[in-house]
């Protein structure tokens, strides 16, 4: 096991990683920008190094300062968390060349899954079902028309280097598909410096269901079940649950096996998530993309399986075999995570950073709050506006919903406005309660209610 791990991140995930390290007896090094001097992760780590001014590009993304911090503190491994440098293959390579273990998959894994088009063709070769789509990058308007007609409308044109909902355009007919093609390319060029686009069949009543996998460096891969993340607004997740309320067991098993096959196919190691698009009307699922990092919503999987995923990441990265087999993975009960952000519902949920004069976190059986916020803490405008992840578990979905409803009532913030009222409204909404929602649900709900 590592002696000392540097956490190349901040906020709640930095705290989460520090907790797992402490549980394993591993020393911790926090890095922080000058805006994060009072952050909890800085106070709880064994060592803390200031690595730059507030701007992320000059601090949390500043590779030389982070590696230097690891060198002067003698850290033997770096955990990148999520976001920032977590899926930066170049950073992973630099760690390796400096003899610092990058806690995550190999640079090749990151690269392969980072390019969406390459990821699709890799999965196609591994015989993992993918959304029907173009064979590769679209190279001419004629090809665009032929592809769309072969597939059948509606179609979506996506950027190969894409993410965050940019460089995507839906088209419903011949008339709009060429325009969609050209607009998507222009947006992709602007946002990612790469105009490559490809086409997929657009599944309208879709659910976003992802499978957590964990692999060691000895070829063992297991899946830990799925999470339903269909509750999204502008491609940002707000609520996630495990298991998915509507998935049938046979489909569940097929998806889990497909995710394991995908990971084995690319010789993956450490934690990863395979995202699928699930078409309720046909009960078919399609590979969308793979995230080569630990995810924000990993706690819901922890709550229904009982495994500490961050600890497992540390163990696997230090060369140990997976501490459980597929047979030993059993999901029991139901878990829901609601992301509480400092956002103003009266201003279209614009980020509203500021001083949290006083905060009370909920408690009781089956209630977990992952947060770096404390009374007197100032949420700065430089990073995300997350206040806390509120995670509940229950023996079944109804019990989990009741607990989340009650926990939201206890979640009191004297400071910036938060999305707590939105969570409460969701818990009282019939469609959510019966579990019949898809990726279009949240935006419609928010437009109607807020």
């Amino acid at each position, binding site marked *: 096991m590592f002696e000392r791990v540097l956490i190349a991140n901040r906020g709640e995930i930095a705290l989460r990683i520090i907790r797992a390290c402490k549980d394993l007896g591993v020393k911790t090094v926090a890095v922080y920008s000058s805006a994060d001097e009072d952050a909890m992760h800085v106070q709880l780590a064994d060592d803390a190094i200031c*690595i730059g001014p507030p701007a992320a590009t000059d601090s949390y993304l500043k590779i030389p300062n982070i*590696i*230097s911090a690891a060198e002067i503190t003698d850290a033997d491994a770096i955990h990148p968390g999520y976001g920032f440098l977590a899926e930066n293959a170049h950073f992973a390579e630099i760690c390796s060349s400096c003899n610092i273990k990058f806690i995550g998959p190999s640079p090749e894994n990151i690269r392969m899954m980072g390019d969406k088009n390459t990821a699709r063709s890799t999965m196609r070769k591994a015989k993992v079902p993918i959304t029907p789509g173009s064979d590769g990058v679209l190279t001419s308007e004629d090809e665009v028309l032929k592809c769309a007609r072969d597939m059948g409308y509606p179609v979506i044109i996506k950027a190969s280097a894409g993410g965050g909902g940019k460089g995507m355009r839906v088209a419903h007919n011949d008339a709009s598909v060429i325009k969609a093609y050209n607009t998507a390319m222009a947006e992709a060029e602007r946002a990612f410096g790469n105009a490559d686009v490809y086409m997929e069949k657009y599944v309208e009543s879709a659910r976003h269901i992802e499978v957590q996998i964990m692999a060691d460096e000895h070829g063992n891969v297991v899946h830990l079940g799925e999470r339903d993340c269909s509750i999204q607004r502008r491609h940002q997740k707000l609520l996630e649950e495990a298991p998915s309320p509507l998935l049938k067991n046979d489909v569940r098993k097929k998806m889990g096996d497909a995710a394991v096959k995908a990971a084995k196919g690319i010789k993956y190691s450490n934690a990863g998530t395979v995202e699928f698009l699930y078409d309720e009307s046909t009960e078919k699922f399609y590979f969308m993309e793979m995230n080569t990092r630990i995810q924000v919503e990993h706690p819901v999987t922890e709550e229904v399986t009982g495994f500490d995923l961050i600890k497992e990441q540390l163990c696997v990265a230090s060369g140990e075999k997976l501490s459980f087999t597929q047979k030993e993975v059993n999901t029991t009960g139901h878990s829901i995570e609601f992301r509480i952000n400092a956002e103003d519902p009266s201003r279209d949920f614009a980020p509203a950073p500021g001083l949290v004069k006083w905060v009370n976190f909920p408690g009781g059986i089956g209630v977990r709050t992952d947060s770096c916020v404390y009374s007197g803490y100032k949420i700065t405008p430089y990073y995300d506006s997350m206040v806390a992840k509120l995670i509940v578990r229950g023996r079944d979905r109804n019990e989990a919903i009741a607990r989340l409803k009650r926990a939201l009532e206890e979640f009191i913030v004297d400071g910036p406005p938060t999305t707590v009222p939105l969570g409460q409204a969701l818990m009282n909404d019939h469609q959510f309660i019966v579990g019949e929602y898809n990726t279009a649900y949240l935006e419609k709900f928010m437009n109607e209610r807020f």
Partner: protein
Amino acid sequence: MEFKDLKKILDQMVASELSELEIEDKGFRLSAKRGGGGEPQYLVSPQPMPAALPASSPAPAATPPAEAGGTAGGDSDDGFDAIVAPVVGTFYRSPSPESDPFVKVGDQVDEDTVVCIVEAMKVMNEIKAERKGVIRKALVDNGDPIEYGQPLFAIDPN
């Protein structure tokens, strides 16, 4: 106008219990008002200041933020300015173990004088004084680990 001059002006404003102050000088204008909390709120135009001033927050810190990096100084304990580290790494006082230190206490330096090396990832970053002054004290020892914004030398500007 340097940051330390601004700080002197504002400190004086608090000490004299002035509630409003306006200064205009050579294309520079300072307007400062003291809010209910007793801390001055200030707007500075037109040149950007070396340290970022939080114009919208009600109680800006009187201490200079570390994001000024190596250009504006932090304050060392003795009330002098400090040359601070713009990178993370290991501090070296001399170009090599056998050579003399770059600077000694009492040395006059100017903007381009190299005062030390901070080594990061095998790259020897030469740190310049970035202002004229006399070195008063070395605040760290040879071989010490250095973080961003850490004061390295106390300097008496002139």
